[in-house]
């Protein structure tokens, strides 16, 4: 393996599409700029109609909650204005057990923190049958709603919660369904 492993570049790429979801200066969680003009995050991150988003360049923008599904733990926010970058999603079905993944978010208020790991398993963890990407990767409060991405920086899931040392992320195809069903 002679090629260079540049995790810093990967982190930078992900920070550009990761927002900080705040309310009156209080950090609520993270979010992903996707699709263009929108932000997806967890429903448990946004409990009000309106929130403020802090972008990687420090700008604060107001966002409205357009759709929210507490069962799927997903929310869609509208971001006014154009020119914001948008995340690239991984090809469907490209996630393999053992493949490298990286998470960016604001765990415990640490802005743009990167954690890395591998995909541990995919599928349900309990009788609810909800599928998860289970990653061998550390998450902390503040990571919720942030991107889980592959080695190319393409988003594969939204980090939602931790089960001990295991990270649980909503697979991006679920997020796609949710956004499509929101019909906005």
């Amino acid at each position: 393996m002679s090629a260079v492993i540049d995790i810093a570049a990967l982190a930078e790429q992900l920070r550009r599409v990761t927002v900080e979801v705040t309310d009156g200066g209080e950090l609520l969680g993270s979010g992903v700029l996707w699709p263009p003009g929108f932000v997806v995050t967890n429903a448990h991150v946004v409990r009000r109609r309106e929130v403020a988003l802090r972008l990687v360049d420090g700008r604060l923008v107001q966002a409205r909650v357009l759709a929210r599904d507490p069962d799927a733990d997903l929310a869609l926010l509208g971001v006014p204005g154009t020119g914001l970058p948008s995340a690239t999603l991984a090809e469907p079905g490209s996630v393999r057990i053992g493949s490298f993944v990286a998470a960016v978010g604001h765990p415990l208020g640490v802005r743009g923190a990167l954690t890395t790991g591998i995909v541990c398993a995919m599928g349900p963890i309990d009788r609810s049958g909800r599928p998860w990407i289970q990653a061998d990767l550390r998450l902390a409060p503040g990571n919720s709603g942030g991107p889980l991405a592959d080695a190319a920086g393409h988003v594969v899931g939204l980090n939602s919660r931790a089960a001990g040392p295991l990270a649980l992320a909503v697979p991006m195809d679920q997020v796609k369904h949710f956004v499509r069903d929101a019909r906005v």
Partner: protein
Amino acid sequence: MDGLQSLSNDLAAAVERGGRAVFSVAGRPRLASTGVHWRPGLVVTADHTVHADEDVTITGPDGRALTARVAGRDPTIDIAVLKVDAPGVPVADVADSQAVRVGHIVLALGAGPRASWGVVSSIGEGRRARGPAPELLHLDLTLYPGFSGGPLVDTQGRVVGINTSGASRHWHLAIPASAVNRVVDELMRRGHIPRAYLGVSTQPVRLPEPLRQRHGLDQPTAVIVVEVQPGSPAAAAGLLIGDVIVSLGANRITDPTDLKATLRPERVGESITASVLRGGEAKELQVTVGERPRRG
């Protein structure tokens, strides 16, 4: 392709390759553990995860449930070997665990498959950390529930050890493949895994400074013989109550755990030198390691 992408592909391929020989082992209530198809018809797992000897249900990577029985156990290194008829399930590619170095990237696999990754953080026992075997691989990775008994694989998916939490949350260890091979070889040679014994009961004892100086010993403690079973290898060698055993072969004996760890199954029949202190004088005795009579 960039380096990270290629590492990622290597890791996923290693999981796929290593996972082909992985079984789910339902050997205890609630939490199934993991096993590895080590040699044709022999599945290795962690001894502490298999409670019964007969009718152990194991599930192959293809989802087929099979019935296995315990062919042998080596509790001292937490290894159990199950006998099963598993045609069609590939045998693991077992690598030379001597080639493993501190810092190598490794993956722990659980049935499913599931995977976690990390590095080898140290090899061999720490000075105080007492483990059940020498050359243990200490891992900087998470062994998730059910990972015990599963393979530790290198980035090429080759098995370098068997993972065990050692029935403790704080241990993330792997028994090196070389130690597992020795146990499996014994099983194939004898038809069972013998339990080595000397026939002594011992207690730890502190060595007084003058005694240590006189005999050039740097260990602070040793074990004192408090019982010699009649007719045992120890009795035949002439060990007496009150003898202080300071070493056995090349192994220093600082407490009874060391004695147990030295008595590996493959040493049955071997003649080893016991260095003892008797009445303050150094003495060497030749003792032939015996096999503890089997129950039933």
